[in-house]
């Protein structure tokens, strides 16, 4: 009995000590995927094709340690000499040379020597290991990067068995010294063997894959956690982008938690009749989708939404992807809203961008940066369909999740538009994607009644609230949108 008890105690102890301490990489969304960061004193292999961002990710791991946690680092470079890396990485805002001089970063230059070399007979990599350990001691390092193992393998190409044995030994020795190790390795293709020399099987506790795909003439970069020994991780590819001055910036996805609180505070839609249909207005931290064919009045609703907010003393921001600023201002004037004055007063900010100007992750970052800078109470995006055009399907869904989550986290009211493809009835892909992600949906449709084409509006969904169920006619004139009587016998064009 006593033996059993002590045995249980022992188990408990192991359990506690087996909770892995996490080392943050500096790529926040990535750290979220892996439960807070890379496990301390473990080896992670980061695989990717040339140009996938391995060196940037690895350097960021070191830079973040030095800048944020006072954890010094060692960079073992097999490919480029240290001076080149220092120059290449300065664009991301990392002052490697300064850190090196300050004793916070040490290089081990293992770039190919310009010597004639003969490799024959048995050897080990004790030379390399002793240099890494020496460098780690000299700066009291906590983090080590080896970039990239593929060059090392190519150097000793005829002895892969020795290489694998030695890499395993190096990895073990570094871990034993309490160092958190990140090794990069090249892949031949985006989907296929994990790394060229299949290193991960020998050295890696964890495997991370960086991808760089061409999709519809756009680069799509993603990061995926393939394996985390002894711990959980989120599955799937998270998109990321490489930004000047920041490095790898990933977009959180599957780790997304619906933790934002729901507000019961109502704000105006900018149109009192619609407010009424929604049971008193939109919720302050909700996202509403306005969907309709071209010309049904989506941009007008956006204009009302912005102007109504500003009138109520709020700050509003619009991201326009379809029309120029001049066009938007003209439209607004035509409907009785003076955007120029509102912007001059600092109440309104209009941002017009070409969807094709950048990839979706960059669009998201632009929105986030401007929202955090302008601090609006409400945000409109016109239209999602224009953004959808530039993105692969999965990328767009990820973008939407991130966008709606961001809007809710900031507790601001959001209005997004989507264009349905067909003029009468029908649905668009954006609707399918977004209908589950938005809190409310307003449909605008052309409705034919005998010889006349009418416009109809319906509140299809309003999360957490009662709303009117009827389809209301509406007209548009110089003063904006006017809602009229419900249709009595509308054809079935309001499919979700």
């Amino acid at each position, binding site marked *: 009995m006593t033996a059993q008890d002590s045995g249980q105690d022992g188990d408990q102890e192991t359990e506690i000590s087996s909770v892995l301490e996490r080392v943050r990489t500096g790529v926040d969304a990535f750290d979220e995927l892996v439960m807070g960061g890379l496990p301390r004193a473990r080896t992670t292999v980061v695989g990717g094709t040339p140009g996938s961002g391995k060196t940037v990710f690895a350097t960021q791991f070191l830079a973040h340690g030095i800048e944020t946690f006072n954890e010094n680092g060692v960079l073992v470079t097999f490919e480029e000499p240290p001076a080149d890396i220092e120059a290449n990485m300065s664009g991301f805002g990392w002052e490697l040379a300064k850190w090196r001089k300050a004793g916070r970063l040490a290089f*081990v*230059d*293992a770039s190919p*020597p*310009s*010597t*004639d*070399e*003969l*490799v*024959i*007979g*048995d*050897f*080990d*990599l*004790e*030379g*390399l290991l*002793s*240099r890494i*350990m*020496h*460098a780690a001691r000299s700066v009291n390092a906590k983090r080590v990067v080896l970039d990239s193992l593929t060059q*090392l393998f190519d*150097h*000793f190409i005829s002895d892969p068995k020795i290489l694998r044995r030695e890499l395993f030994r190096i990895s073990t020795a570094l871990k034993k010294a309490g160092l958190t190790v990140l090794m990069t390795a090249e892949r031949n293709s985006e989907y296929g063997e994990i790394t060229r020399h299949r290193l991960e099987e020998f050295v890696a506790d964890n495997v991370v894959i960086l991808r760089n795909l061409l999709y519809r003439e756009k680069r799509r970069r993603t990061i995926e956690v393939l394996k985390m020994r002894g711990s959980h991780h989120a599955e799937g590819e998270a998109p990321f982008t490489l930004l000047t001055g920041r490095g790898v910036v990933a977009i959180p996805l599957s780790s997304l938690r619906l933790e934002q609180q729901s507000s019961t505070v109502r704000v105006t839609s900018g149109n009192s009749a619609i407010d009424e249909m929604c049971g008193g207005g939109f919720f302050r931290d909700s996202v509403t989708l306005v969907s309709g064919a071209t010309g049904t009045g989506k941009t007008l609703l956006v204009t009302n939404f912005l102007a109504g907010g500003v009138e109520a003393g709020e700050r509003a921001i619009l991201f326009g992807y379809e029309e120029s600023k001049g066009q938007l201002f003209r439209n607004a004037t035509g409907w009785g809203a003076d955007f120029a004055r509102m912007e001059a007063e600092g109440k309104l900010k209009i941002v017009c961008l070409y969807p094709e100007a950048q990839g979706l992750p960059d669009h998201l970052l632009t929105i986030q940066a401007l929202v955090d800078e302008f601090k609006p109470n409400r945000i409109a995006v016109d239209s999602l369909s224009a953004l959808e055009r530039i993105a692969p399907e999965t990328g767009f869904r990820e973008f939407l999740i991130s966008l709606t989550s961001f809007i809710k986290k900031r507790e601001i009211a959001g209005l997004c538009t989507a264009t349905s493809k067909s003029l009468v009835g029908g649905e668009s892909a954006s609707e399918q994607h977004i209908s589950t992600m938005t809190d409310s949906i307003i449909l605008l449709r052309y409705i034919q009644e005998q010889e006349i084409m009418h416009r109809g509006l319906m509140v299809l969904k309003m999360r957490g609230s009662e709303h009117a169920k009827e389809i209301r006619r509406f007209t548009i004139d110089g003063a904006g949108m006017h809602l009229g009587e419900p249709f009595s016998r509308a054809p079935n064009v309001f499919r979700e």
Partner: protein
Amino acid sequence: MAAPLVLRLYIAGNSASSRRAQQNLERLRASVSSKGWDVEIIDVLTRPDLADRAGIIATPTLSYEDGPRSRRIVGDLSDTKRILEFMGIEGDHA
């Protein structure tokens, strides 16, 4: 008379391949009608700084200057024939 060739042998402590390399180097030295080799043994475990300066990755590594060029032999120096070929030395042992 040219100055004797300086050979630096980088080894890792007492490992089997390091011991073999030292023995093989002695054998080589004895077998060639050399003008004289100056052999320097450097243990990377105690002098990682020297290994770093020389850019040593593998041990054992035999390193020497051949005119302006630096030449290296990685391994335990067991294949006498190929090593002498690489060094451009004709051995007496043949």
